[in-house]
């Protein structure tokens, strides 16, 4: 095993605030880590490619999503199977590879059933959830916000580019700065309790169950905002499980949150904004982007993002797809080829690229697991990213007092996620406090803002999908 250091020490824009230097042990070998950083980032930073082996075929696995959703990073930490990407590193942690299915029963969570009666439960601490909490901050409603990550902010914490949008909506700032601002603001709200590193696992007759390392909570809310965001789509090709293949968002977390370079020579699959933006960020981190490939004949994302990488010589190959990758412990080579309009591979156009990393930026799917358990009406609307909850213009679902906001309602943007989160927040205030003029006006303005925002040609799809997702408002909301 050849160990190297994948950390980014100098970055043109970011400064990485690292904790105290500590030592952890991977398969007995000491490696350097920083207290509080993602354990998976620390392991990866030390040049370790294989985190574990798959239980049956014993194929190597390594980080993919970096947000606790895929399970590829599970190893034994101090004897207990652990998702390392969402576990903060601590001094002397002993890490062993896993190559079979862990014995689940031995590691049952302690059931400290602290029952919480609250006015509002917010599931998810991304822009949408934080926005709802902001509106409710300082009111007489008790609020619990549950988020499963190490740092609050959802996708925002990995966004190092400057925001678009209008002045009222943070334009000109960088995403992670907005997340930090909100995180500070919410920590000072007396009526908002943030449960971080805590996952909402289910909705039951008795209430909503959330689980953290320390405890299992049973929460009984009067109102709920589900703002659980989205997860990254996967792609089928030969050897697509090899270490070195990551979700673009996962790579972004590694690189922009924890300061660890995902690889040196990179192929990005997908030319939507995510693919284009991450390519630019890879250049900033000092990596080489060999190409961005796109199956459609046109670039999917905004022109300005494409132009940014083109001027540094990164090719964007439209009408191209990935056929497979080769490598032993990790990707060493990728094969791409041209496709025709029906996405059929054109024979003879295969080309191999020497890369050590392949990033998948092929779209997001709304994370609706929790909201569905409330029994809300759902509809498959491809324009919004797949199966989504129906909602009123005020973000209430078909189940009274259950609201949605952000990417789980429609794959869109942080700006619109914030607006929807605010709308949901005001809707709850209106329900709880009656039709106060102030709240109604603010909510109407937000609804208008959302409408204006979506009027651009680049939002055509969302506009169409949005119409299909609407249900009439409750009479009381006028």
């Amino acid at each position, binding site marked *: 095993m050849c160990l190297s250091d994948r950390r980014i020490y100098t970055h043109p824009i970011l400064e990485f605030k690292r904790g105290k230097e500590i030592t952890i042990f991977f398969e007995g070998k000491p490696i350097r880590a920083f207290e509080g950083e993602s354990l998976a980032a620390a392991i990866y930073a030390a040049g370790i490619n294989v985190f574990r082996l798959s239980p049956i075929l014993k194929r190597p696995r390594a980080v993919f999503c970096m947000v606790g959703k895929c399970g590829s990073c599970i190893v034994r930490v101090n004897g207990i199977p652990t998702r390392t990407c969402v576990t903060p590193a601590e001094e002397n942690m002993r890490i062993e590879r896993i190559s079979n299915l862990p014995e689940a029963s031995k590691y049952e969570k302690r059931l400290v059933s602290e029952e919480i009666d609250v006015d509002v439960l917010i599931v998810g601490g991304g822009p949408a959830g934080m926005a709802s909490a902001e509106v409710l901050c300082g009111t007489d409603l008790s609020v619990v916000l549950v988020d499963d990550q190490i740092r609050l902010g959802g996708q925002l914490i990995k966004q190092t580019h400057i925001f*678009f949008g209008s002045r009222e909506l943070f334009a*000109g700032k960088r995403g992670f700065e907005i997340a930090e601002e909100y995180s500070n603001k919410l920590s000072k709200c007396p009526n908002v309790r943030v449960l971080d590193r805590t996952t909402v696992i289910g909705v039951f007759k008795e209430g909503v169950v959330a689980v953290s390392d320390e405890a299992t909570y049973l929460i009984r809310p009067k109102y709920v905002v589900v703002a659980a965001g989205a997860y990254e789509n996967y792609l089928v090709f030969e050897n697509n499980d090899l270490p070195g293949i990551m979700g673009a968002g996962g790579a972004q977390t590694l690189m922009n949150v924890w300061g660890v370079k995902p690889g040196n020579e990179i192929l990005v699959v997908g030319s939507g904004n995510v693919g284009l933006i991450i390519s630019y960020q890879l250049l900033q981190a000092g990596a080489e982007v060999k190409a961005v490939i796109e199956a459609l004949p*046109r670039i999917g994302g905004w022109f300005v993002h494409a132009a940014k990488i*083109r001027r540094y010589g990164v090719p964007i190959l439209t009408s191209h797809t990935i056929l497979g990758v080769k490598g032993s412990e990790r990707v060493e080579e990728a094969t791409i080829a041209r496709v025709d309009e029906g996405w059929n591979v054109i024979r003879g156009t295969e080309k191999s690229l020497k890369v050590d990393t392949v990033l998948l930026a092929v779209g997001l799917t709304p994370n609706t697991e929790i909201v569905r358990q409330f029994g809300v009406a759902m509809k498959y609307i491809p324009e919004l990213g797949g199966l989504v909850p129906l909602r009123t213009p005020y973000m209430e679902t078909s189940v009274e007092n259950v609201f949605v906001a952000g990417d789980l309602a429609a794959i869109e943007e942080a700006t619109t996620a914030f607006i929807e989160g605010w709308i949901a927040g005001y809707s709850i205030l209106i329900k709880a406090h009656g039709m106060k003029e102030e709240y109604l006006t603010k909510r109407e303005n937000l609804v208008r803002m959302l409408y204006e925002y979506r*009027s651009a040609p680049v939002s055509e799809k969302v506009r169409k999908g949005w119409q299909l997702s609407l249900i009439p408002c409750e009479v009381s909301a006028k």
Partner: protein
Amino acid sequence: MRHFKETGVVDLDTLTKMGYVPDEIRLRRGPVAIYECVEEIPCNVCVFSCPFNAVSKNKITDLPQIDFSRCTGCGVCVGRCPGLAIFVVDVSKEGDTGYVTLPHELFPTPSKDGEVVLLDREGREVGKGTVTRVYRDKITKSWVVTVSVPKDLVMVVRAIKVIR
């Protein structure tokens, strides 16, 4: 010429048609901003960052409209635009040297009087230039760099590579 949404590269013709290229008289008068924001996107950072009210949009999703008679070429918008789509060109000085002001967010970082490689919209090296001015925008922390370029390349050079 293939469409910019196929290539990620816009050509001078398209920019001219969109009204983003000032006439000769204005160009000769002094530095002026060239906006390469050719797609209607919801953004108005330029509108509120221009101290001279030279940029406007009716709707947030319109293309920005530049009033070249108001634009002083100050370059403030260059460091603020999230699309890194704004450049200032200056062909007003005597001789064969022109100047391009552009945003820069990569390592190595440029320093004044340093020599840099000039890149076009496709990343091809088109010559060498010298940094005549560099500062870091207070809000975005992007570098805003002015480089000297051969006059006939002011509409070609859109990025730099810093030589160490």
